[in-house]
């Protein structure tokens, strides 16, 4: 398993997480397929102050996530696995935010859409596939939970349920504990726009605002909660409108722009780490495919709308920007895609060979087991 990584580590002046200076190519089997390119340590002007290597890593994670997901759909259509929770369309917001935190130091409470968050934090393709296939060695639950119910103690990713929005309160609690101990880690929680209709959203923001907790609330607003449009879920025009009454800054971001998201998140992380309190970030994104493999989105949204949004695919946008800046060219893109294909193949084979959980273990871990 890849060690906790961060793309932005070296940018964080005064970050105490400097020991965790791995990056995606630094550890694990991913390094075997290192991408060739321009010198990696040069910061590229106008591109969020990120180094070439960091920019290429961002591109890699976006590409990897999309590649993994395509494979999942394939396996699902082949009847091999019953359930896919897609991420496509959200990767920009996810990679952009996750790049700005220190993996293994900062706490993360993601939701089911957050495959690209997990990859950026350092979960490998193999890990993701193990959980997707409900294998005994799947790090998140060993086959107990549906895919995409993230959990990784070594990455400080807290186990998630399927209850929309419930993790928001856990995030405030995690942040409270860190703050009480005087530690400078921050806590990030992710959720969809639908989650903002629920009471836990309000209670969590309110408490974080009262206590000035070092927590960042990231809403991935894709305009739908399954079939319901945002205006059926929320009286607010923007999710970020809820920030003001909860004593925190709020920003509505173009979630398709990974670099813009990264910059806003960096500010929020710095603010939280300084002890100045919480931030609410809203990333406007779009879900390119149905809610899950059980859903048929043709019933509730027009194809044209989907196609229009696909023009704003975060991968396309990033490639264009990196291309214009001379960081990425067609050859590098092709190389990245080959690398992703190899890793996805490897992960699929690895997971297919792995054992499922032993039915004899089904009663374990209801309570702590005696030492």
């Amino acid at each position, binding site marked *: 398993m890849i060690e906790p990584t961060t793309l932005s580590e070296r940018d964080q002046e005064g970050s105490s997480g400097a020991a965790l200076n791995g990056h995606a190519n630094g550890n694990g089997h991913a390094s075997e397929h290192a991408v060739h390119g321009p010198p990696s340590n040069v910061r590229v002007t106008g591109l969020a102050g990120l180094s070439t290597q960091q920019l290429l890593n961002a591109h890699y994670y976006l590409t990897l996530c999309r590649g993994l997901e395509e494979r999942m759909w394939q396996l699902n259509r082949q009847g091999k696995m*019953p*359930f896919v929770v897609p991420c496509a369309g959200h990767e920009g917001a996810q990679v952009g935010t996750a790049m700005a935190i220190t993996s293994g130091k900062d706490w993360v409470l993601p939701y089911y859409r957050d495959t690209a968050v997990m990859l950026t934090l350092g979960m490998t393709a193999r890990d993701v596939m193990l959980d997707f296939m*409900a294998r005994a060695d799947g790090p998140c*639950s060993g*086959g*107990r*939970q*549906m895919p995409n*119910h993230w959990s990784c103690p070594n990455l400080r990713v807290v186990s998630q*349920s*399927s*209850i*929309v*929005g419930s993790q928001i309160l856990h995030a405030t609690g995690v942040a409270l504990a860190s703050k009480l101990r005087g530690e400078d880690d921050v806590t990030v929680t992710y959720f969809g726009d*639908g*989650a903002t*209709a*629920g*009471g*836990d959203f309000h209670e969590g923001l309110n408490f974080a605002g009262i206590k000035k907790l070092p927590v960042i609330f990231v809403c991935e607003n894709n305009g739908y*909660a*399954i*079939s*319901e449009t945002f205006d*059926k*879920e*929320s009286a607010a025009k923007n999710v970020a409108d809820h920030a003001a009454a909860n004593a925190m800054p709020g920003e509505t971001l173009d979630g398709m722009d990974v670099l813009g998201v990264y910059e806003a998140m960096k500010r929020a992380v710095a603010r939280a780490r300084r002890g100045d309190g919480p931030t609410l970030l809203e990333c406007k994104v779009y879900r390119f495919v149905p809610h899950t493999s*059980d*859903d048929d989105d043709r*019933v*509730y949204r027009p194809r044209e709308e989907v196609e229009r949004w696909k023009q704003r695919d975060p991968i396309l946008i990033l490639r264009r920007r990196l291309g214009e800046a001379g960081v990425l060219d067609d050859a590098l893109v092709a190389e990245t895609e080959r690398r992703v294909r190899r890793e996805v193949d490897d992960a699929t084979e690895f997971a297919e060979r792995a054992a*499922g*959980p*032993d*039915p*004899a*273990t*089904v*009663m374990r871990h*209801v309570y702590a087991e005696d030492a």
Partner: protein
Amino acid sequence: MPTMALVEAVRAGLHDEMARDARVLVMGEDVANKGGVFGATKGLLEEFGEGRVIDMPLAESNIVGTAIGAAVNGMRPVAEIQFADFIFPAMDQIVSEAARIRYRSNGAFGCPLTIRAPFGGGVHGALYHSQSVEAFFAHVPGLKVVVPSTPADTKGLLTAAIRDPDPVLFFEHKAAYRSIKGEVPEGEHVVPLGKAHVARSGKHLTLVTYGLSVHHSLKAAETVAHDGIETEVLDLRTLRPLDKETVLESVKRTNKVLIVHEDNVTGGIGAELAAIVGQEAFEYLDGPITRLCGPDVPAWPFAASLEQAVLVTPEKIAESIRTLAAY
């Protein structure tokens, strides 16, 4: 009589009551445009309009709390909780509010509200799309709890629930939605709440169950019949109020009782049934009061191997019947 899958009987029940009574509303997540994640409300929006088929925000306390207010103000709301697993955010509104408005107002206000939710495992739904939650509500005075097992009962009991002057929890086993088909009487069809159904007669022992387990139990009864064991299978249909007369009458005749449910054993419906039998049919018992229920784990895991390990199957039921019959 048309043959319907269980989920179609839900839809038919909703449809007919909406057509009959303009006070009936359907409210829930994805119930309008999408017609429900299981299709239980498909077509209702088109026929009754968005005033009566309401896509609600993702907030279960609001769904139930708003439905309570509408019920108090003359409506007959049918609230859908998308999966029974997501009913807990609405627990306070159900237990503290809906269940008590009548009692606390000394009879001045009532709350004619139906809350539907798909429940149960066996569809790879994992911990949060597999739960049985009926026991929580069967404990609560002021509520009624219904679990239908056949399409005909589904329509008949749902109709009775909607017409009932008090709050009714109506749980539909999601693995039965398409797998269980049956004839449904045309036109008005009402099955009264609170009456159990003798799904199969027998004299050697009484098997008490409900929901999808009725079908598993009937299969098991069929299997053991080949060995000469005659099992009486009772389908409770309503869990609160419990039809204890029918249960006691049967047990007093067969002298043995096997209680079967999918919900985890501790504190499930089987506990209350056992207590009633142990107190009121004590002198008639010729064998231990036996429960065959889900194990005490938090709902069912995702992996097929794990899920199979916890489900109450016809095979496990047949084995329990044999053991008890041989006692």
